[in-house]
């Protein structure tokens, strides 16, 4: 029974990783932008959800929506500020600008929301499910379902719709796409807004597992690095596989080896893989 429960644990952890990583991998794949503010955006998504539920009294589903909208707006503002650098493809400066913005978000959130831990009541994280001797919560089910739905939706969008192919064109070759009349600026803006919205959704679903703090963020998303690179940058299917796979790896490694060293192991595996295949698992 231990094994079965650990598989469940792995899927729960993995769906969380995959959910949080989706926006990041798309942003990286399309705009080649490393968003260092990802962790702080995750934290803000969690606090936006909390604020909506506790201070504004909204029910959980509406609060999720509110968080998504709030972060989408924030993302639009951030991208607007960075647009000059994005268009000149000054990637190193962009990376550091997001780092700076992340710091501003962290300091600002600490001042606005304070340093005390908060909990998100009214979610499903305390609604337990007992399946024989296995246990998980309805929140875990929600995260898995939402992650799969989100990935399916995004995949369908990018593969089957017109706008999706526009995004793929800009990802391949922005200058060529511009020659074809595509406004790369709008694409970059939308992709960045999507990243912020996606991480807000991820935060609203995953963060209720534990108390939220304005100082959090970095550790929560550190696994995003691994997921994105392992899955192949920009690869949607890859990120899903890598996310779930990483979750299972962490569950098994932790169960049968040593939980305390899982971060080291995950990054070690990442390094080893990159030595062999610099482009990640889903290399084009």
């Amino acid at each position, binding site marked *: 029974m231990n094994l079965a429960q650990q598989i469940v644990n792995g899927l729960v952890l993995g769906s969380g990783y995959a959910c949080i990583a989706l926006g990041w991998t798309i942003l*990286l794949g399309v705009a*080649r932008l*490393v968003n260092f503010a990802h962790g702080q955006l995750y934290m803000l998504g969690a606090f936006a959800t909390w604020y909506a539920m506790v201070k504004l009294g909204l029910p959980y589903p509406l609060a999720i929506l509110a968080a998504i909208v709030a972060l989408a707006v924030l993302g639009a503002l951030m991208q607007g*500020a*960075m647009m*000059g*650098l994005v268009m*000149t493809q*000054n*990637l*190193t*400066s962009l*990376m*550091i*600008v997001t*780092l*700076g*913005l*992340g*710091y*501003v*978000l*962290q*300091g*600002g959130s*600490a*001042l606005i929301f304070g340093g005390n831990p908060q909990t998100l009541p009214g979610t499903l994280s305390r609604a337990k499910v007992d399946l024989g001797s296995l246990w998980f919560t309805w929140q875990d089910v929600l995260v898995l379902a939402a992650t799969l739905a989100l990935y399916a939706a995004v995949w369908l969008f990018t593969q089957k719709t017109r706008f999706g192919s526009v995004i793929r064109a800009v990802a391949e070759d922005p200058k060529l796409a511009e020659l074809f009349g595509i406004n790369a600026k709008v694409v970059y803006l939308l992709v960045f807004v999507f990243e912020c919205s996606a991480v807000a959704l991820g935060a609203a679903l995953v963060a209720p597992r534990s108390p939220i703090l304005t100082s959090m963020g*970095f550790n929560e998303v*550190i696994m995003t*690095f*691994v997921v994105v*690179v392992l899955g192949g*940058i920009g690869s949607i299917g890859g990120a899903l596989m890598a996310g779930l796979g990483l979750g299972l790896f962490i569950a098994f490694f932790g169960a049968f080896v040593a939980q*305390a*060293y899982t*971060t*080291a192991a995950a*990054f*070690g595996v*990442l*390094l080893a893989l*990159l*030595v062999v295949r*610099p*482009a990640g698992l889903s290399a084009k």
Partner: protein
Amino acid sequence: MTLIEPQSPSRAPWLQIAVVVVLIAVGFFLPRLLGGTSIAYSTLTTIAIFAVMCYGVDIVLSYLGEVSLGHTLFWAVGGYAAANLSVKYGMNGWSTAAATIALCIVAAGFLGAVTLRTREFVFSLVTYAAAVVAYEIAFNWDAIGGSDGIVGISALKLPFGFATYVGGTQEELWPVAFALLLLTLAFIARFRRSRLGTTALMVQMNPPLAASLGVDPRKVRLAVFVISAPITGLAGWLYAYQRAYVGPDMFETYFLVMMLTAVVVVGRRVLVGPLIGTAILIAQQNLLSLGGDWNKIILGSVLALVLIFWPAGLIGLLRRFGKARA
């Protein structure tokens, strides 16, 4: 993107040398000029050490055009080498410094080889992953310090045959820090004009030209990366003696962010850029601290605003002024 600036014919070389000598003298006596208090010495020593730390990252950014997020690894190697070797084996400063350089070269050789085929953000992510793994190792390996680190690092001893220079207090460490800073600046000035330096710039800016000249870009990449490591490593080495304590906190983002900010804020390939950047950061933290949260907002805003408006750094702003006046 700045071009390689043509060497302007030196007008009066003796004047340039005299200016440099005066600057060095003023720099050396700066703590005394600022009051000779212990905080003057400790702040300037810290600035010097952190500036040297930043120069390692600066070389990689300026000459390879890449952002290394793994230089905290070399910083920590220097600190841990100094701490472990001096506390456990009583080795003197020269030996620990030599060990630092050797270990950094080995580590950088390995990491450089691994990242040979990676570019841009993948390079950054891989260097970052290496730092994370190194952190986990340092945190869990009790033999080299474990999670609490190594305490009681004794004073720096630099034997000179007839006498030994002891660096125990901030006043005594300042000359060593200043010397290290000068050495670094001299090295970088030299590197800029060296064959490797100019080749690296050419590879960065005009790869086809470099290829046609028979340059192997991978060798150049590796060489530059390996050279950058001991610089940051020696800064970590001296930091261990200054703080008398080394721990896994050497890997913290505090140092990483300082490296990135100092290097990027003033501009690339500006010799004193990282030094000025470091001085500004430390000055703000010590003299104008508004509390942890506001400091983050200020630091983040400065970083974001400077780069948004002047992607080439503050030096770009200065050059624009210069051009406007001309």
